[in-house]
């Protein structure tokens, strides 16, 4: 089965219907008083984590003990980490990471610098399907696989900054320490569960180079008190404003330096834009940055700070930074130099796979008759989309009934009517008397 970071904490779930209504993938059903996630449909966007009043929906990350398995440990902080701090000083934050058990840091913002550079190259080559859709948000890539398979060819075939950073960090550490690759542990500090899932079920690559993922929240808790007391911050910050700006929505699109690019955030907005692209309405657009979370990565479910505040901090921080990234400054010769990162490796080695999770049946005739049945069933349902049946809408209940996953009596209104009919029938029957006892029949005779 599929691995998902976003999961249910059974004990906390009270079986309410908040999450089923908010799930953009209609991937949750309440069964036996617990909100079950349908693996094939879940895209790990984390909307249910935000919606759950009981904190029963969680994003699983790795345990801190995982670090012990490695001799040399590298922290890969997502740039969204910087947005959690008031007046962020990147060098202080990175130095603090070295005080909680990491031997080295590699900024994911630096990986983002490189991916921005490669994105520009790819698009300028001009043989890509327009608009090119960013592949940096794993929840969006899963959404395309499940709901927009015709757009799979539009998705940019480059690694995420996380994956790029992991590869480059390991390369550098191997050279620096002389250790074997498997003794070097690379740990991503993540704002969301979708990234965790993309490590276990990699996108575009066979295996992820990331060895573990810690939540941004847990790392923030460990370093928050340290950051302001660091007297001699090390000069660790290397990323440019472009890479840091990836933390908020619009940053990646700006990094492409293309005039004709747009950014969209919030999973429902992403769905709307993808629908339009599918109709061929945006073919004149060069690039689409699409982020599942409102505000971009700083709006991720594993962050601490209010996403609007964090967006502003990232904006101000990046404006103070150098404009050109190190890759941009490198000459053509340097880029192919052996000592420099092998950028070709950051292209996908594996193409995306279309999911058939939305299909009713692989036999079209059977699927068509199931659709007719769904329409018939839907006519009998009240159309209130109340969620009491455990499905998000009457339409989804009708689908579940036809698929054999639910019954019409899961609908409380149908059940109530049926009980009412039965009660009437009982009442009618109770009024009937056998001829030997009855009065009226005698008169008739």
């Amino acid at each position, binding site marked *: 089965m599929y691995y998902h970071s976003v999961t249910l904490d059974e004990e906390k779930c009270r079986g309410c219907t908040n999450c089923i209504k908010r799930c953009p993938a209609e991937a949750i059903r309440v069964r036996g008083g617990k909100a079950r996630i349908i693996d094939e449909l879940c895209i790990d966007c984390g909307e249910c984590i935000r919606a759950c009043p009981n904190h029963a929906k969680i994003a699983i990350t790795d345990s801190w003990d995982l670090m012990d398995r490695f001799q040399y440990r590298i922290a890969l902080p997502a740039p969204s980490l910087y947005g959690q701090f008031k007046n962020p000083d990147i060098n202080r934050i990175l130095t603090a990471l070295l005080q909680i058990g990491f031997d080295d840091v590699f900024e994911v913002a630096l990986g983002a610098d490189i991916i921005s550079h490669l994105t520009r190259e790819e698009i300028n080559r001009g043989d890509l399907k327009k608009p090119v859709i960013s592949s940096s948000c794993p929840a969006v890539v899963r959404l395309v696989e499940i*709901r927009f*398979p*015709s*757009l*799979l060819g539009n998705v940019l075939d480059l690694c995420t900054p996380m994956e790029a950073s992991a590869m480059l960090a390991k390369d550098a550490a191997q050279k620096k320490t002389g250790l074997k690759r498997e003794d070097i542990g690379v740990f991503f500090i993540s704002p969301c569960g979708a990234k965790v899932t993309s490590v276990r079920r990699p996108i575009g690559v066979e295996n992820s180079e990331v060895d573990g993922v810690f939540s941004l929240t847990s790392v923030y808790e460990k370093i928050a008190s340290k950051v302001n007391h660091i007297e001699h911050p090390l000069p660790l910050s290397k990323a440019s404003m472009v890479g840091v700006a990836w933390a908020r929505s619009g940053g990646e699109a700006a990094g492409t330096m293309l005039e004709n690019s747009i950014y969209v955030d919030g999973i429902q907005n992403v769905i709307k834009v993808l*629908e*339009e692209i*599918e*109709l*061929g309405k945006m073919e004149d657009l060069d690039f689409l940055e699409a982020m599942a979370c409102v505000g971009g990565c700083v709006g991720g479910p594993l962050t601490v700070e209010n996403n609007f505040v964090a967006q502003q901090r990232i904006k101000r921080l990046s404006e103070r930074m150098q404009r050109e990234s190190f890759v941009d400054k490198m000459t053509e010769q340097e880029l192919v130099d052996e000592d420099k990162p092998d950028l070709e490796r950051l292209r996908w080695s594996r193409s995306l796979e*279309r999911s*058939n999770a*939305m*299909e*009713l*049946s*692989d*036999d*079209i*005739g*059977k*699927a*068509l*008759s199931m*659709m*007719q*049945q769904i329409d018939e069933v839907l006519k009998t349902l009240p159309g209130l989309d109340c969620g009491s049946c455990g499905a998000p809408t009457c339409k989804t209940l009708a689908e579940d009934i036809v698929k054999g996953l639910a019954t019409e009596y899961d609908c409380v209104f149908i059940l109530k009517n049926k009980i009412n009919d039965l009660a009437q029938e009982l009442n009618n029957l109770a009024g009937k008397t056998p001829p030997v006892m009855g009065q009226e029949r005698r008169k008739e005779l």
Partner: protein
Amino acid sequence: MERLAASYRLDYDVRARDYVSGGEVSSALRAILKQLSLPPDLVRRCCVACYEAEMNIIIHSFGGHMSIEIFPDRLEMIAQDSGPGIEDLQKAMQEGYSTASEEAREMGFGAGMGLPNIKANTDYFDIQTGKEGTTLTMKVLFLKKEGE
């Protein structure tokens, strides 16, 4: 349950100048087609043809109706409107030629790609037009193997 014929029908009234709802029919069609095991490109072609036909009714006609029937091997679509008809059909089939109103152009429509787009995305395309209205009949075959 009674045995049902293996086809699925969608019927929609389309109102003239209702730009805001434009795309509703093709959205509904797309939602249906995604539940069938069809190659993504076929789904896209059906939806593009449907969208253009729907927008044509909105932009150019006094209102009309779309009926779509999906069979295991094909999609049939009829877009019928009640006038005023296409004056010069030959020109209308040319890319970039448009008779869309100023209002429609301001909304970003009327690029003159409607009918050419429909023709390019369907396997069968017929158009009947007169002052009393226009009827488009379109078919997309599912079984034909095609790359693009």
